[in-house]
């Protein structure tokens, strides 16, 4: 398929006897928003790292626009794809502007300076994330939401076709969560960026994603549109909980009822 921008074929990764990635294949299409969901330790973050070649798989391949990612140069990859990791160095005392400038690194030779074009892109990244008024403030002086937006702005300065985000809303309060999710949606719509994210909040995943991929024990167990996926069996299988499903206009959401039999059994073994 021509709009297949990122794909994985038969990825295996053995990390320990209790944790491994097994035979994962997936395809991501242009301008799609996909959320990877699953319980803690199901391999979601590891999958993101495999897709961004931060970890090399033991077997299988990742393809970026049809090319094997392990045969591409780091800078060539960084010009097309980047990720927002979950945690950052909290002692960085850069200003927002300085941080965003690093996003141009993949396009720069060792000692190449900034051109007018780079400055335009940096300005775009800062205005798209609504950080103009605080671009000369240092990261530690910002709120969690502002800081997250600053990191997203840095990723944007890479002008990526694909942006992966590892739990972009964790540690944020609800209004900052919405702020980040709306920003991601806007970047997808207005700039055509393909989004892949790991999300813990399934209601947010359903609201903002075209497609969900559910993982369990290092394997992909289900995938499809939120509407197709949101049913009681799905929640029982993936999280071991019983839920009620409701609809807000056309978007499904769930409310947990109680921990299902599957989970109580697990707790006692």
């Amino acid at each position, binding site marked *: 398929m021509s709009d297949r921008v990122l794909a994985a074929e038969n990825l295996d990764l053995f990390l320990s006897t209790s944790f491994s990635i097994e035979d994962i294949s997936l395809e991501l299409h242009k301008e799609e928003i996909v959320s990877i969901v699953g319980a803690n330790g199901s391999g979601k973050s590891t999958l993101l790292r495999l897709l961004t070649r931060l970890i090399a798989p033991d077997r299988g391949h990742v393809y970026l626009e049809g090319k094997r990612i392990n045969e591409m140069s780091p800078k060539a990859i960084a010009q097309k794809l980047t*990720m927002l*990791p979950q945690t950052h*160095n909290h002692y*960085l005392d*850069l200003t927002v502007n300085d941080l965003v400038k*690093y*996003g141009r690194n993949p396009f720069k030779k060792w000692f190449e300076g900034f051109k007018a074009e780079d400055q335009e892109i940096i300005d775009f990244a800062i205005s798209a994330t609504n950080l103009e008024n605080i671009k*000369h403030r240092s990261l530690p002086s910002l709120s969690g939401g502002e800081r997250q937006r600053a990191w997203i702005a840095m990723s944007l300065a890479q002008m990526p076709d694909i942006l992966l985000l590892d739990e972009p809303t964790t540690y944020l309060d609800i209004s900052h969560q919405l702020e980040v999710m709306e920003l991601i949606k806007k970047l997808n719509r207005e700039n055509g960026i393909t989004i892949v994210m790991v999300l813990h909040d399934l209601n947010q995943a359903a609201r903002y994603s075209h497609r969900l991929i559910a993982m369990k024990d290092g394997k992909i167990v289900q995938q499809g549109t939120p509407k197709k996926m949101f049913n009681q069996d799905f929640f029982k299988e993936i999280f071991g909980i019983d839920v009620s499903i409701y609809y807000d206009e056309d978007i499904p959401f769930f409310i947990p009822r109680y921990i299902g039999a599957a989970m109580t059994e697990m707790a006692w073994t």
Partner: protein
Amino acid sequence: MQIKDKVVQIQSDPRNKKRWLVAVIAFCLVITAVVLGLITGAVNISVTDVWNALFGNEETLHRQIVYELRLPRVLTGLLVGACLASAGALLQGIMRNPLADPGIIGVSSGAGFVAVIFMILFPAQLKFLPLGAFLGALVAALVVFGLANIGSGGSPYRIILSGIAVNALLGAGTTGIMILNSDSVQAVLPWLAGGLSGRSWPHFYTILPYASIGLILSVFAIKPANLLLLGDEVAKLLGHDVEKSRFLLIVLAAFLAGAAVSVAGLVGFVGLVVPHIIRMLVGNDYRYLLPISALGGGFLVVFADILARSWFDPIELPVGILLAFVGAPFFLYLLHTGGIKSE
């Protein structure tokens, strides 16, 4: 009625003014220390006389003292301090550990071990001493870094602990060699204490090429060192070859530490104290941290040397001992205040 939001737009990083101020002050301190270093000593010589001694044509006693004794010692001290502080600043960034100092993590003792071997076993090959010291420093740095990263990543404590182990091993090796060659130890002892006593033009010309190369290469280290600060994953996602640049930065830090050790012996704590204080003043950004640390290191070593040779006149303390008196409490203070938080 509507109250208009007053948006105060700051036009640039507000810290830049302070950073430049710190740089200017550091530069002035260096000049002051150099001048003080030339005028103070067993014989105090006035600034005018120093000027005449340096730029006049007469062969006076003052010219002898200033030109042959004090000037080379001061210049050597500047380079030693600049190298040690730069090496410390780089190591702290590479290992993401504020306690990484060439003396603490075994880099200096690696250099010292090879230097002692050279001085005792191959006294005829002394011109290769800095090169040997560099290789010793490099091996020690790689061993410490490797040990600390086995298993679950390098925590600050693991780096310090492997540094202690490497330090102990190399210290034992150095002592062993000295005992086995006790007849030629006299030449090594003053060097081992760490200091600038008796350092003259030959020492200056020994360190000059190595220090110049190292300090010039530091300019190229600024960008990769800053990228590493973002974290390994982020740097990789920005297309940066993290492993390669970390290795090259370790090589550079070892080169700088080796250069310093080969002329001044084991001078500790400069690489710890200076980058720390500068970091508190200007922040982590290596564009400011590295050059200002180099200035600060030069100042500290020259200034401490002035105290070391004039305080207990006529007895001269090795500057390394004086620095340890200041540095060790500072190190304990950092441990105590949790200055060793890593990421």
